[in-house]
C-alpha cells in the first residue's frame, strides 16, 4: 500500500529530516525520494510504503500537514491509486 507525499515551499535546511522523522516514528518506510524545482518552488516527492503504519492514516496526514505548517511548507499525502487512476490507463 503506497502513497505519495509531496512537500512544496521555499527551500531550507531540515525539510527532509523533519518529514522523515515523522515517517520513521510511525512505521512508514520511504521507498524512493526525489526533489526538484517546479514553478520556482522547492518540490520534494516521496513514495512511501504504508503497510507498516502504526497510527491511523488520518493521524499521519494531520501530523505531516502540521509539521509542514511549522516550517512554512505545504505537505500533502496522496494515495498512489489516485495517481494511478488519473495518469495511467
Amino acid at each position, binding site marked *: 500500500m503506497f502513497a505519495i507525499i509531496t512537500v512544496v515551499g521555499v527551500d531550507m535546511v531540515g525539510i527532509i529530516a523533519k518529514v522523515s522523522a515523522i515517517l520513521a516514528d510511525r512505521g512508514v518506510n520511504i521507498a524512493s525520494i*526525489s526533489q526538484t524545482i*517546479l514553478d520556482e518552488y522547492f518540490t520534494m516527492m516521496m513514495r512511501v510504503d504504508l503497510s507498516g503504519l502504526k497510527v491511523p492514516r488520518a493521524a499521519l496526514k494531520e501530523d505531516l500537514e502540521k509539521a509542514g505548517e511549522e516550517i512554512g511548507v505545504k505537505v*500533502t499525502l*496522496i494515495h498512489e491509486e*489516485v*495517481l494511478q*487512476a*488519473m495518469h495511467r490507463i
Partner: protein
Amino acid sequence: MIFTPFEIQETVRMFSMQKLDIRTVTMGISLRDCASSSGEEARRRIYDKITRRAERLVAVGREIETEFGIPIINTRISVTPIAMVAEASGESDYVEFARTLDKAAKTVGVNFLGGFSALVQKGCTKGDLTLLSSLPRALAETDIVCGSVNVASTQAGINMDAVRRMGEIIKDLAARTAAAGGIGCAKLVVFANAVEDNPFMAGAFHGPGEAESAINVGLSGPGVIKSALEGLSGASFDEVAETIKKTAFKITRMGELVAHEASRRLGVPFGIIDLSLAPTPAVGDSVARILQEMGLEHVGAPGSTAALALLNDAVKKGGIMASSHVGGLSGAFIPVTEDEGMVEAAQRGCLSIEKLEAMTCVCSVGLDMILIPGDTPASTVSAIIADEAAIGVTNHKTTAVRLIPAPGRRPGDRVEFGGLLGGGPVMAVSPLSAEGFIARGGRIPAPVHSFRN
C-alpha cells in the same frame, strides 16, 4: 519515481486549489418489496430497509475520504418513487411516508434522500395523484427529503394536467416555506425524460428498472476545467475541446476509483458515474466562469450557448472512456443560485431566464435553482415547465425545472439559502399570461421520431 513531478503536482493542485471533489456517493435502494396494504406496515418496512442497507454508507464514505485523500462532500440515498411503494396502502395522504424517509435518512446520517417522486408522463394512477397532493406538505415538513415528478417523455409526450398541477404545487410549497424564501422548492424537480440512476439532488430516485441496490457517484470539478483552460488564452476551440476532454477523463477516473471502492466495501453493485460538472457557490467552483474563460464577458453574452455546447460535449467525450458505466445526467449543470459566476451575471442583468432556457437545449438538466418573483402566477410557472419539457421531449434529452417563486420578493431582491444551495437575485419573468394555455389540460402528443430536421 513512478509518476512525474508534473503529474503529482497536477493532482495535488486539483484537490488543494481547484476544489476537485466527489459531490456525492449515492446509494440507490429499491423499496418495491416494502409495499403493504397497511400504511403503517409499509413505513416500518421502509425504515428498516433503508437503515439496514445504508447503515455503513456514511462511515464508508469517510473511510474512503481519509484513506484516498479525496474529499467526498455528500452521501445520499435514492429510493423507488414513493408513489409506487405507497399506493398499495390505500392511504389518502403520503406525508407520513415522507416523515419516515426523513427519519431513516437522519438515522443513517446521509445529507439527502431523494425519491418522494412520481412518474406521470402519460397519466396519473391513484397513488400518483395522492403523492402530488402530498408534495407541498411533505417537503415543507421534512428536512432532507427531496421530491421529483416526471411529467413528460419523448415516448409519451407531455402530460399537461400534471404540468398544471406542478405549477400550483410549486407555489403552494413556496408559500409553506415563505419564511426561508421558499426554500422548499429547492427540494423539488419537475422532469422531462427523467433518468433512473441520477445521483444528484433534488432529482435523484431509484428507478423501477434498477437493481435491488446500486452505488452511483456524482463528480464536481468545474474549477479543474477552468484552471486547465487558463493556460490556453487565445487558443483555438480544437485545443479547448481537447483540453476539456483530457481533464474530464482524469476527473472521471478518480470518480470511478471511489465508486468501485465504495461498492466493494459496502457489498453493493456499482451502478454508474455521473459525469456532470456540478458547481457550488464557492469561488473557483463555477461553470459560468469556464464559459468566461472561453472569452465571454459574462455568461449570458451571445456565444454562451455555443460555449456551453462545446463544454458539455467535451466533458462527455472525456468522461465516457474513463468509466465502465456512465449514466445519470452527465453534462454541465447551470443552476443559478448554486454557481457564483451565474449569480454575478444575474445580478449585473447579463442573464435572463430566456437565455438560460436556450442554454438548456445543449446541456444537462434545465432551468435550475432560479429565484422568480413571489407573485408569479401558477399558470406561468406551469407554462415555463411546459416549455422546458418540450425542449427535452423534442431533443431526446433530460430537462428539468427547479424554480423558486420567493414569496413577497420582487425582481432584483436577494434571497440567501446558504450551504450548497447558495443564494442570488430574483430574476424577472415575462408578465404575459399563459392562463388559457395551461387551463386546457390533456396531453401534448409525443413528437414524430423520424423526419428529424
